[in-house]
């Protein structure tokens, strides 16, 4: 296998793996957050506004780690900084 094939397969595998771990971990964490948010919402319906606002903000902060994984996967797939090097090494 030459350099381009290795680089391409490693990039695709890493992007998929990154999205897999990122999505499942962020989904699990958000599930916990929503579950405890809904529990407290059922216990104290009067505080619905405050609880749901805090819940949404914490969801967004948790989601950031998943979004980071997504951005890294997109960079690996579509804007890989090492492609230029591999192509120049291959044409040499």
């Amino acid at each position: 296998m030459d350099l381009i094939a290795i680089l391409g397969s490693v990039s695709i595998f890493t992007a998929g793996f990154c999205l897999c771990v990122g999505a499942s971990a962020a989904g699990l964490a958000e599930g916990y957050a929503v579950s405890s948010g809904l529990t407290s919402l059922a216990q104290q319906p009067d505080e619905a506004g405050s609880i749901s606002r805090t819940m949404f903000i914490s969801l967004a902060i948790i989601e950031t780690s998943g979004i980071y994984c997504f951005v890294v996967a997109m960079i690996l797939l579509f804007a890989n900084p090492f492609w230029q090097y591999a192509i120049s090494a291959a044409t040499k």
Partner: protein
Amino acid sequence: MLELYDEQIAFYLPYFNIPINWTIASTWIVMVFLMLVSWLATRHLKTGDKVSHWQTGMEVLVKGIYGQINEMTKGNPMTYLPFVGTLFIFILTCNLFTLIPEFKSPTASLSTTAALALMVLLGIPFFGIKNAGLKKYLKKYLEPSPAMLPFNILSELTSTGAMAVRLFGNVLSGVIIGSICLMLVPFILPLPMQVLGLFTGMIQAYIFAMLALMYISSVHEEDENVAVPTEIQSPDDEKENV
């Protein structure tokens, strides 16, 4: 599939021959739209029973943002309303415009969201010094102990940087899922994804504005027992009260 709007030239500026990329061009489109709507809405402002639909809509929007800010912060919400409200309305319009075919939403480009987050980063010292004074603002970085100074500065930078990446990633993922669905099943399936994109766009605009509000209002004076007006006061009312 992944379109980099920063690298696509929309047109060249006449006479100067400066290339304008799609991020800037679509930001200008959104700006013109927002200015047009606000000009239409605030043309005939009046008080009384009969007001125009435009004015009612604007009042609902502004009072909604005012109420949210009032619940989250101490002190007068009018301090933050112009900044946070502008962020919210701009991001909301950008996100909802992703529905228009061929419109290249400015928030799907990292440069726009980084610029917005940079404004928040500059807003933290601005509003902090305005609310609590320079000494108290600088003292915030030395708490709980001076050894935490680098970490406090780092957390300021990373939290605003995360805001930029979060907004960018969410809008970009909506765009990419839409284009993947168009490739695979172009008939019905993209529709629910677009609806989900609308929902995510609204939530993200709300989240961005609320996080910006949390960061810029983090430094304030300790004894905030100032009476907060529950209604928005126009400048004329304040003069009458004085």
